[in-house]
């Protein structure tokens, strides 16, 4: 019963989110994000149809579509990346390098897994696959959030909501699916509700922050600072180096 209530609430909130964006005419401002929400909404409706008419096929259908939902979730990451870093050329360079590092790490894991036969093979469960996909999303989110925090990139209410909501869901999913893939934890009823509750919390955050359009703050052209990066970085480096060496010297006394 509780599961049904969660299910219907999620469908209603997703529909509300999409309807509000269309009604307020800012659907096109976050196309990739709303593509994700719309896809998940359609999936939920399909799932409900299968659950009602073909209950025996539902578990398999659920995991297949869940895998699809996790894949479409990368659209949200792209939306964050495009919205948050588009005007920060320096931060984009750092982001690209870090994302390449993550890609290289994933490739390495796949290669090692293929060679040793213990990696992402088809024999593994769909839950494990989703867990690994969510883990990769978590790593990408970490990069984006760390860059936003480090470079103090200002974000509007909409983008902040998208990032906070999706991070909560991905973080909860990684932990839940990790525990859920253990033999003793998976069948427990409590664990099955953690992910839907986290998703419901995410939808609540999105409904609250995406109720109206709030673009990202534009950099003030009057105070835009354009300086020689090398000169500045050398100076900052020198100050930090001096400060550190001084403290090191004092610490040894």
């Amino acid at each position, binding site marked *: 019963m509780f599961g049904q209530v969660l299910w219907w609430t999620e469908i209603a909130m997703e529909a509300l989110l999409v309807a509000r964006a269309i009604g307020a005419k800012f659907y096109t401002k976050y196309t990739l994000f709303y593509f994700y929400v719309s896809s998940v909404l359609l999936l939920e409706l399909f799932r409900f149809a299968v659950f009602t008419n073909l209950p025996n096929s539902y578990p398999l259908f659920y995991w297949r579509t869940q895998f699809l939902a996790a894949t479409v979730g990368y659209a949200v990451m792209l939306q964050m990346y495009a919205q948050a870093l588009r*005007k*920060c*050329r*320096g*931060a984009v*360079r*750092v982001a690209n*390098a870090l994302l390449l590092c993550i890609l290289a790490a994933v490739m390495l894991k796949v290669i090692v897994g293929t060679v040793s036969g213990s990696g992402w093979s088809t024999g593994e469960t769909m839950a494990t696959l989703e867990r690994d996909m969510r*883990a990769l999303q*978590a*790593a990408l*989110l*970490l990069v984006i*959030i*760390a860059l*936003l*925090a480090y*470079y*103090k*990139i*200002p*974000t509007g209410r909409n983008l*902040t909501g998208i990032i*906070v909501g999706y*991070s*909560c869901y991905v*973080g909860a*999913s*990684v*932990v839940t*699916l*990790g*525990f859920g893939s*253990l033999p003793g934890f998976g069948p427990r009823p409590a664990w099955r509700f953690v992910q839907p509750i986290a998703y419901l919390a995410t939808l609540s955050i999105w409904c609250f922050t995406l109720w109206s359009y709030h673009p990202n703050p534009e950099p003030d052209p009057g*105070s*835009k*600072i*354009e*300086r020689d*990066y*090398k*000169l*500045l*970085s050398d*100076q*900052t*480096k*020198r*100050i*930090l*180096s*001096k*400060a*550190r060496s*001084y*403290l*090191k010297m*004092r*610490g040894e*006394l």
Partner: protein
Amino acid sequence: MSQLLPYLFLGLLLLAVLVWWVWGAIIQRGAAEVLAPRQHRSSVRSVGLQGDLAERIFGPQDWDFVSRETPSEIQRMFQRERTALALAWLRRMRLQVSQVMRAHVVVAQQSDDLQLATEMRLALSYFLFLILCNSLIGWVWLHGPVRTRKIVGQTLQWAVRLRAAFEQLMATIDPASCRVVGAISITERFGAK
């Protein structure tokens, strides 16, 4: 169970970084400033005042007088008071360096010729500095300012140099609001090295 640890760590790390980011954004909004160099300049000026004040506070004269003329109870009270002041001063110093770093990242985020290796080195330097500064705070907290008088003296000298470096840096970042005092370079002020 051990195979779950990376996932657990990743999930919790993501949530922790998220909280850190949101908290930072709230603080930033509360302060109603996005790293305005003009404000940093005023804080740079305060370093000077603070340095002068600290020189008076941490100078050996007071302690020499107290240890010579007063009973042990007063000496203990003096030490307690000076410990609190020393800690406040070190925290202030940490704040000043943090402001330099913030000013740097504001410029770096929009820089076309940003160098990844330099950025990484700077970030590492900054975090090492924070670790060392916090260690020093802990050291002063444990031993008190009287036993670390030498350190305080050296710190004061460093603060004077740092102030010059701040002025220079702020002049680079925002020359419209900063006048470069004289033609003394950072290297000259810090000593050629």
